[in-house]
Structures are given as structure tokens and as C-alpha cells.
């Protein structure tokens, strides 16, 4: 009986009137126009403008948003309780509106509350309240930028981060290379070494407490670990030959690096607590530039075991080595995206350097920028933006050689210079700080 009733219902539904269905395939991909109203401050009005400016610069720099000029705002959002006149903001084609207010506590802290509105759906998307020491207002602006970015794009932000790099000064014969750290927007620059000994390839630990880098302090390339708070430095160990290209594992317990002895380079795993070393590769070819996958189970590296420099993936115990690149040219400096969906690399082909992307299985290779010398990609923690460095050649008079940092989106667009006061190379992007 039940089956008969079910059969009847199915027959009836087949004759029911279906809604009109329309398929829409494809879309535009322009920066989303949004409005950011000045955060109102009960005591320090400058602070409201400064924080609003940081947020505006961050979101605009991501190239995913177009910030509508404040001069065009029809409605003034004077308070957090002000309800938007949606028609006024729709007239400006603002897809979202952000406004907030700042108050100062007696505990020398600032308290910031803000809202995000969907103008066309006419509803609130987010409302949050944050606090921070009043002298740390830049950080809180970056945190708010990350929250807005994540809510509107669905992806984690990258604004509350730092970039370690090598600051370079001097001519080619007398080049000074110092380890430096700055906020991702170039603020709060600190030099961590004095430049007496050449430093290269800095890398943050996942908890940001340490930086590992290579230095020529002892006359040959060796690895050092520096405490980022008190800047105390110690050598990783005394290894035969040269050691270089270090990277932390995602859990921060291991380092993977290359060691070169008698002309042969192999990859080693180093346990930071026990100081136990494990050799992962054992091949007469040059194996170097290892990088962990974000789940910590695999390592990508480059090797010339096939005759040319290509990319390979192996398990973290050194087993199951698989070649993933097969293109023309030489592949180097692979680095796995924090999202796990791409491996970025440097490629040299036809006398030009390129930065490229491929899927971890080697498919979908794309070269997103090129130049006389571009190399050393590093991922922002959201796996959406890359930083790299670019060097221009010397002219006939021996001048003009510069090294600068750049960022680029994974779509291959929006290549932008990261302003530094000196020449810069070897960038390393930190994890999110909050």
C-alpha cells in the first residue's frame, strides 16, 4: 500500500509545474567596489583616520577590492548604531560597507567595534569587537583587514604578517647582506644582523619565535637559528661541507635542508630537540631546495638526477620519490603553498628567469612572471599571494644593478613592488600572527 501511494506521488510530481530554470555560466572578475567609512573615535580622531587608512591600503593592495572615494559618500556613518541608507550606497554601486568606532579604555587599551554590510542584500554580514594596546594600533588595523578580507572572499587574510628578507647595500664587489624583518606593508623595519657576515635564505618558524638562515660567518655556508625576541643566535651544528636551503616543518619540530660534501648535495632531516639527523636522499645527483607540504607528509625538492634540474616529490622519510616536472628548462627553489594546491618554483628557460606554478602532481604549469633574474618565491599564509625578488642587470658602466621585492597574485596579475629602503632579496613570508 505504501509503495502504491509513493508511486502515485511520483506520478503527480512529474506533472507538477516546475520553476523556470536559467543557467548562468561565467562571470566578471573585477575588483569588488566597497565603501569604508572613517572609523569614528570618541577621543583620538586621528587614530580613527589612521586605522581606516591602513585598512583601506591593505584591501586596495590586495587588488580584490576597489575602495570608493570617501568624497562620494552620500551618507555619513557617524556611529556604529547608524543604519545604512541602502539606496544611497547602491547609488555608488558599493557592494559592501564597513564602518566602526574606536574607544579608549582606562587600561591603556583601545577597543574597536565594526560592522560589515551587504548593501544589495541589505543585511549585516559581520560585527566584531577587538581590543589591543593603544600603541599597537597598526596590528589591530591589519587584523580588521584580515577579518574583512576573509568575510568577503572566503579566504584567509595575510595582512597581519611579517616578511623577512636580506637587505643589500653596496656595489657588486663589496656587497653587504643583512637579515631584516618588516611588516608586510613595509612598516616596522628591523635589522637582525649587522652585515659583517653575509646572510641568506631566512625562514620563519611556524610559531614565529625563530628564524633559520644561512650565513658565511665561519667562512663557509652554515645554518644558524636566531631567537626573534632577543636575537641570540646559535649554529645548527658543525656539519661537513656546506649546509644551506633550510626550511621548517609545518609543526616546527624539524628542519629540512641541503648539505653538500665532496661536490654532491643531499637532503637531510634535522630534529630540533634531539638534534638527530636523517639523510633523505642518496643519489650522485645534486638534490637541494627541499620544502614541506602543508600536511607535513611530503617534501618537494629539485634534483638533476634526470640530467637536468627538475622537481621531485618524496615522502618525509625519503621514500617514494616521484618526478613531477617534465618541461623544458631548469626548475629550482620549489615551495609548497600553505593551501596545498600549488607548488611555486623558479624556472630558467631560454636565458630568462620565470616564477611559475604547478599542481602537486605536476599538472597545470603556468609561468606568471619573468625577468632578467626573478627567483625565490615565498607564499603568503593564505596561499593566494606570492612574494619574490627581482634583479635588474648592470649597465655597461657597471651601474644600475638593483634587487627589489615584488608580490603577485596566483592568477598572474597585480605584480606590485614591495617598497624597501634598500635593495632586497630572498623574501620569506611569516604565518599569520593572530
Amino acid at each position, binding site marked *: 500500500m505504501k509503495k502504491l501511494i509513493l508511486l502515485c506521488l511520483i506520478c503527480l510530481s512529474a506533472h507538477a509545474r516546475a520553476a*523556470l530554470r536559467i*543557467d548562468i555560466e561565467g562571470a566578471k572578475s573585477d575588483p569588488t567596489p566597497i565603501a569604508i567609512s572613517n572609523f569614528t573615535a570618541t577621543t583620538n580622531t586621528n587614530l580613527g583616520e589612521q586605522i581606516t587608512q591602513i585598512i583601506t591600503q591593505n584591501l586596495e593592495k590586495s*587588488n580584490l577590492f576597489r575602495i570608493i572615494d570617501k568624497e562620494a559618500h552620500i551618507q555619513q556613518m557617524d556611529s556604529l548604531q547608524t543604519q545604512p541608507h541602502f539606496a544611497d550606497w547602491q547609488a555608488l554601486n558599493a557592494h559592501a560597507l564597513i564602518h566602526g568606532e574606536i574607544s579608549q579604555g582606562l587600561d591603556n587599551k583601545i577597543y574597536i567595534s565594526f560592522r560589515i554590510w551587504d548593501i544589495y542584500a541589505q543585511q549585516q554580514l559581520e560585527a566584531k569587537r577587538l581590543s589591543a594596546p593603544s600603541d599597537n594600533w597598526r596590528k589591530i588595523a591589519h587584523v580588521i583587514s584580515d577579518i574583512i578580507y576573509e568575510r568577503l572572499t572566503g579566504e584567509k587574510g595575510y595582512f597581519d604578517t611579517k616578511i623577512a628578507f636580506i637587505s643589500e647595500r653596496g656595489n657588486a664587489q663589496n656587497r653587504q647582506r643583512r637579515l631584516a624583518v618588516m611588516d608586510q606593508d613595509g612598516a616596522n623595519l628591523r635589522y637582525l644582523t649587522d652585515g659583517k657576515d653575509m646572510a641568506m635564505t631566512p625562514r620563519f618558524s611556524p610559531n614565529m619565535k625563530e628564524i633559520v638562515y644561512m650565513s658565511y660567518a665561519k667562512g663557509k655556508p652554515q645554518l644558524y637559528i636566531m631567537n626573534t625576541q632577543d636575537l641570540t643566535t646559535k649554529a645548527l651544528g658543525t656539519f661537513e661541507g656546506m649546509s644551506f636551503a633550510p626550511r621548517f616543518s609545518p609543526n616546527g619540530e624539524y628542519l629540512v635542508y641541503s648539505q653538500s660534501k665532496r661536490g654532491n648535495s643531499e637532503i637531510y632531516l634535522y630534529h630540533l630537540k634531539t638534534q638527530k639527523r636523517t639523510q633523505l636522499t642518496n643519489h650522485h645527483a645534486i638534490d637541494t631546495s627541499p620544502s614541506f607540504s602543508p600536511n607535513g607528509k611530503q617534501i618537494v625538492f629539485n634534483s638533476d638526477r634526470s640530467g637536468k634540474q627538475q622537481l621531485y616529490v618524496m615522502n618525509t622519510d625519503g621514500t617514494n620519490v616521484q618526478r613531477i616536472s617534465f618541461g623544458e628548462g631548469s626548475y629550482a627553489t620549489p615551495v609548497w603553498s600553505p593551501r596545498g594546491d600549488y607548488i611555486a618554483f623558479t624556472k630558467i628557460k631560454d636565458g630568462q628567469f620565470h616564477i611559475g606554478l604547478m599542481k602537486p602532481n605536476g599538472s597545470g604549469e603556468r609561468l606568471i612572471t619573468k625577468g632578467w633574474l626573478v627567483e625565490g618565491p615565498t607564499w603568503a599564509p593564505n596561499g593566494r599571494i606570492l612574494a619574490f625578488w627581482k634583479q635588474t642587470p648592470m649597465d655597461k658602466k657597471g651601474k644600475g644593478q638593483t634587487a627589489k621585492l615584488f608580490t603577485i597574485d596566483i592568477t598572474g596579475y597585480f605584480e606590485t*613592488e614591495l617598497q624597501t629602503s634598500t635593495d632586497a632579496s630572498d623574501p620569506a613570508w611569516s604565518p599569520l600572527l593572530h
Partner: protein
Amino acid sequence: MQKQAFLLSLTLHACILGLMMINFSLPTEKEKTPQAVMMIDLTKVKIAEKTNLPQKSIKKKQQQTKQPVQPKQEKQKTTQITPKKEIKTPTPKPKPQETPPPKQAVAVQPPKQDKKQEKAQPKPQPKQPEKKQNYNLKSLLASVEKVRQEISPSEPQEQPTQQETISTSLEGRIDKVLTISEKDFIASKLRECWNIDGGAQNIEEIIIEIKVLLNKDGSVREATISNNMNLPAFKSLAESARRAVHICAQKGEESPFKILANTYAEHYNDWKELHLHFNPMDANVF
């Protein structure tokens, strides 16, 4: 004993297979009588050379490039043999004219090349690149290695066509009355209103369903997201699709829903609820 059990099992299996091969009809099911063939004399049917589109659409289509769309031609054939209104619908051949809106007809590659030249000089200021409108997200993935570009200069004109193929359900009377070009028009307008982040994670897997309730005058009473996917970028992409409906609806007489209110007012019950199926891009774009 085991042999008997085996034979019994074999027999029962054979019976089931035999039953499966025989067509059953339920006792309550009426016997189907073969339908008489309906003869339609096409010699007396006048088919116009062009679809009877609004003026604006005609101008846009004149700027488009012509590309054959093989899969769609079959669908067109089935929908053309219908009431007299179909007299004005296009033959399969004009279909290529109906595809991409004019902005999409612009070659994808040259603007990218121009952008690359701009990027050669680093510009810290966050100004937008001059990007001509295109909906082919595959082409938005720039590559400096021109020889390896998957989309050659001749290809972009194929890709937009594939991406913008419009498929609609054949259920409901409104679908039989609405012309192909009118459905194209609605979908193309919605596409113009839809803005997304082309580099969103897993974008190639995301499909968004929006249910739209319309008033009799074609204005939007309600637009809701009616599906869900466990992907980080789904929520923001779905909200962008919902926003596209509202943005289009704000365009007054230019709204794609107005065509329903103005032309098919008597069929309001058939179009008062729309199911919009948003697909950011084709599969395997990356």
C-alpha cells in the same frame, strides 16, 4: 547437500535474470496505445532570418563573432517545432550570433599582453589594470609563456561560447513560450551583473543555486541561496551571485526580469519563481 544448495541458488538467480529481461507492466497501468503521428507541413511555415530581439540585443549581436555551437543545435531543433511563435525563432545557423555579449567578443589575449607590459614597470599604487570585460575565467589565468598558452588567439572565441551556453529546463509552459534568445538575454544580463574573485580556491568545483521570487512587475521580492557546498569560497561566491540578482533588478527597465513582466505578463504563475544556476567556470580550467 552443498550441491543441492548450489543448484537451488543457481536456479533462483536464473529466474531473476529471466524476469529482468522481461518487461513488466503493473496491473493498474493502462495499456499504452500508440500515438498517431502528427504531420506538420513546414513548407508553409515562414522562418525569419533573424531572431526578433529587442534593439539593444540586436546591436550587441552584430558585434559578436560567429562560432558554431554543435551541442546546442540539437536542442534548438527540438524546440523549433512548436507553436506559431517559433516562426520567429532562429534556425540553428544563427545561433552563433547569439552567444557572447559584445564585451566578451573582445579577444582575450591582447588585453593580457598589454597588462603584462604595464607590469614590467612596478607600480606600487593600487590602481586597477585596464581589463576589457570578459567572462572567460580560463583566460584570466595569465601566463607569460605565450607558446604554452592553452588559449590561442583563435580559441578565445570558442571558449566563451562554451562557457556561455545556456541550458534551461524544458518543463513548464513558460519554457516552451520563451524564445532561446530571450533566455540567452536574461542569462547574459545576469552574467554582466555577476562579479567574482577569479582566483578563489576550488572555484572550478563551485555551483550556486539561487531561488528568486518575482513580483508581477518583474521586481525581485526575494533572492535566497538554496544550496550549500563545504568549500571555503562557496559562501562568498554564493553571496556574490545573490548580489548579482539584486544588482540586475536595480536596473529598472534594463533589468533582465522585466522581459518576463513586459512580454509574458499573462504567464506570471510560470515565471514568478526562478531557479538560477550559477557556474563560475568550466571544469578543468586549471
